[in-house]
């Protein structure tokens, strides 16, 4: 056999692509690699035909007319070789190879029929080999490779049986033609063993095929139908034949022969009439609606049989431009896509618009119909994904801009606070001081008492203005927040509150980003104000602590509860602000159970 059962078959799809990648220049130039891939199987079929001719010549004398004639045997083997070659040329893959291997093994099996001792003895080693190849072909049909662990196990078991166990029995089998290696004759026991093993395998394979039929999608069933139909007829005929006699038996025997002859044609029909790709497209169409958004690439990769396939989307400003170039293409996460040197690029269009491009193995171009069908089927979903990617990019931008807006607002507040302190307030204080100097000059008993009163009123007015300005500045942005940090600012907040507010002691906070500290402060300030106004609480607790990568701020009171974030409090605006920093703000307030306002703010990435 050309390949080990099991492992190599799994890699069947990946292998051609990988071979290809090693020689990037090979892409579409049709050099040695391409030639080998395209004409390797037909060449093997020619070799198989030569072997077949030799075998038929060698075994011609030993034929028993009741079973198989030379003509029939040649026809069956030749048909496998021919249909395998055609299948391979029409649809590159492993299926053609599987069929050709059945043809070659068919001839190899016939060698034992020879009446010459040497070919006969050699042929004894191959006497069951065709059934192994046939099981492999059946289970691998129509993709040409085994899909499930069970299939691989069964195929491996059959190969071990026909290639290892049966040959081990050769020295112990006496047949009509002298066996040159004969040591002892255990022919009857061997026949019993081989027959029963074959029955067991037949049952297992039959069960696998039946199960496949029932799980197959309708397009896949259309592919399987010819093979299953012919196979069923052949199996029934073979089973009935021993039980019948006379002309009916002869008729049934002919039917079984015809079915054997028809099987390779059925394989070809299945492969050609409804080609593999269309099954894949059918599966694709059925699976698209249930697919998670991240599964599209995997789905397309499977449908096209190229695990390296990638999807890229045009940049919003490049849509509809030259599809052959990958300049300006992004992946679903918005990252630029760099094509590999041997990538083929297939545009996916809706109308005139290129919604996406597929970067794939150029070998897929050998089957353009499938590629077109797959891209057509996926165009809608790809367009959706492109739009989703665009929305994601916009959302990222909107988030970033929201953070910038918060930062800008904070900066503005800080600047206003400083301008008030260092500008207006400073000048008012200076004016008040000069006024004091003037009043001091007048002395305790001014010549005009009215003037003294006026100057006092002016001084009082200035003092009130300075105090008011100080409170205004504090409300806009407490200077202590930038000067000393969140905890001192919260303590000042507590100290200035007319209500009993306690800042819970805790470990020192890590350095906080300005916006996080400001947001935490404003949340606490608003919550404390609300509690003081509405809660009728006897105690308000403020707790700020860092946990993991987040800052947690809780303001809890023991008041009447029943607060509502949407009832026009400033917390709603602060929830937006918290959300801008990717944080959350939760208000828990049950009547009679107090109110707690809880903010969580991430410390990184804001």
């Amino acid at each position, binding site marked *: 056999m050309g390949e080990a059962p099991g492992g190599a078959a799994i890699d069947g799809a990946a292998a051609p692509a990988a071979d290809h990648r090693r020689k990037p220049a090979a892409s579409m130039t049709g050099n040695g690699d391409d030639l080998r891939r395209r004409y390797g199987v037909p060449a093997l079929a020619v070799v198989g035909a030569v072997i077949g001719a030799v075998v038929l010549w060698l075994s011609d004398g030993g034929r028993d007319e009741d079973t198989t004639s030379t003509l029939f045997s040649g026809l069956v083997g030749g048909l496998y070789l021919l249909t395998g070659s055609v299948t391979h040329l029409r649809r590159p893959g492993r299926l053609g190879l599987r069929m050709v291997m059945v043809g070659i093994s068919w001839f190899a099996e016939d060698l034992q029929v020879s009446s010459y001792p040497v070919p006969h003895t050699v042929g004894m080693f191959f006497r069951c080999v065709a059934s192994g190849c046939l099981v492999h072909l059946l289970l691998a049909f129509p993709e040409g490779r085994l899909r499930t662990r069970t299939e691989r196990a069964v195929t491996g078991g059959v190969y071990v049986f026909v290639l290892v166990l049966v040959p081990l029995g050769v020295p112990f089998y006496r047949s009509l033609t002298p066996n040159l290696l004969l040591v002892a004759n255990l022919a009857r026991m061997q026949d019993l063993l081989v027959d029963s093993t074959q029955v067991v395998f037949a049952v297992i394979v039959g069960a696998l095929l039946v199960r496949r039929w029932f799980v197959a999608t309708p397009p896949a069933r259309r592919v399987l139908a010819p093979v299953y139909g012919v196979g069923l007829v052949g199996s029934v005929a073979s089973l009935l034949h021993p039980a019948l006699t006379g002309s009916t038996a002869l008729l049934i025997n002919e039917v079984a022969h015809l079915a054997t002859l028809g099987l390779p044609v059925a394989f070809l029909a299945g492969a050609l009439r409804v080609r593999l790709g269309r099954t894949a497209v059918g599966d694709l169409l059925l699976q698209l609606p249930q697919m998670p958004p991240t599964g599209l690439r995997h789905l397309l990769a499977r449908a096209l049989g190229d695990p390296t396939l990638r999807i890229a989307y045009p940049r919003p400003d490049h849509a509809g431009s030259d599809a052959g170039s990958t300049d300006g293409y992004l992946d679903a996460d918005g990252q630029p896509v760099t094509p590999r040197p041997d990538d083929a690029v297939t545009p996916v269009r809706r109308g005139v618009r290129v919604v996406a491009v597929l970067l794939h193995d150029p070998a897929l171009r050998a089957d353009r119909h499938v590629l077109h069908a797959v891209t057509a089927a996926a165009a809608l979903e790809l367009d959706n994904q492109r739009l989703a990617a665009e929305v994601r990019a916009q959302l990222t931008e909107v988030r970033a801009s929201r953070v910038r807006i918060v930062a800008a607002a904070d900066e503005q507040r800080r600047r206003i606070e*400083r301008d008030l*302190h*260092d500008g207006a*307030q*400073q000048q*008012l*204080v*200076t004016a*008040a*001081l*000069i*006024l*004091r*100097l003037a009043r*001091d000059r007048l002395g305790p008993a001014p010549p005009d008492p009215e003037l003294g009163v006026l100057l006092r009123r002016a*001084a009082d007015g*200035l*003092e009130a203005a*300075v*105090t008011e300005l*100080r409170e205004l*500045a*504090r409300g806009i942005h407490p*200077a*202590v927040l*930038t*000067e*000393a*940090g969140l*905890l*001192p600012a919260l*303590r*000042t907040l*507590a*100290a*200035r*509150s007319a209500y*009993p507010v*306690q*800042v819970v*002691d805790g470990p*020192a906070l890590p350095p906080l980003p300005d916006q996080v500290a400001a947001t935490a402060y404003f949340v606490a300030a608003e919550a404390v104000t609300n509690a003081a106004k509405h809660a009728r609480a006897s105690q308000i607790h403020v707790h700020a602590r860092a946990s993991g990568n987040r800052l947690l701020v809780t303001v809890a009171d023991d008041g009447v509860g029943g607060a509502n974030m949407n009832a026009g409090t400033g917390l709603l605006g602060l929830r937006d602000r918290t959300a801008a920093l990717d944080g959350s703000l939760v208000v828990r307030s049950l009547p009679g159970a107090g109110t707690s306002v809880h903010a969580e703010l991430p410390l990184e990435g804001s």
Partner: protein
Amino acid sequence: MTTATTPSAPAAGVPRIVLADDASLFRAALAELLERDGCAIVAQSGNADELLDAVERHRPDLAVVDIRMPPGYHLEGLRAAVRLRRSHPGTGVLLLSQHLEVAHLDELVGHTARGVGYLLKDRVTGPGFLDAVRQVAADGCAFDPEVVPLLVGGRSGRRDELAALSPREREVLALMAQGRSNNAIADELHLTTRTVETHVRGVFQRLALPDEAEHNRRVLAVLAYLRSARRATISASAAADSVDLGRNPAADDRSTASP
């Protein structure tokens, strides 16, 4: 702690003062106010570096410092004040600010309330300002009336060393913390000076202050007062102290020039 240049009691001699504020109009008006009251303005500076230079050169009794100064307008005055208190213990520091913060008070006062004051800037127009200037210049202390509720407001009513004081004694102590003399306290509380003196002695006794000169005991009492209020507001002062160390190595180098 006191040096020969520092008068040992308020109003003794002419206090020599350095002013530091970047607003020249305000500075000039403040200088006029203090000079009319009998103080000597030995230097004026517009930023922290000039202030440190002037103190180094003139060894004044008092530096009146604005908390925000160039170049950053971000606590430069506070940092300079803290350094001055370490390097020149004989020079009192009166810090003026547009707003009061407990955190800044902690950083400024540290472990001793001698020769230190912290007032709202607009107090310069008030009646107690000149008193406060002389208190701090004479190694005493003066804190803004608003500092006290700020400190007490943050407390949660736990027991402390002030628990033994009667309400009246607390009132007296609070006024002492503002740098008021016994006479001023008597005026404020409508008591006789003798009664106030009795309350002050009561405060000293209850706080178990060592038997020193009354001036020193006043400072210690106020420090105990600030300490007890501060303890409730967090152990941030230690952190603030350690943070302050080495904040401006260049300036620290200069301060080593002091004798």
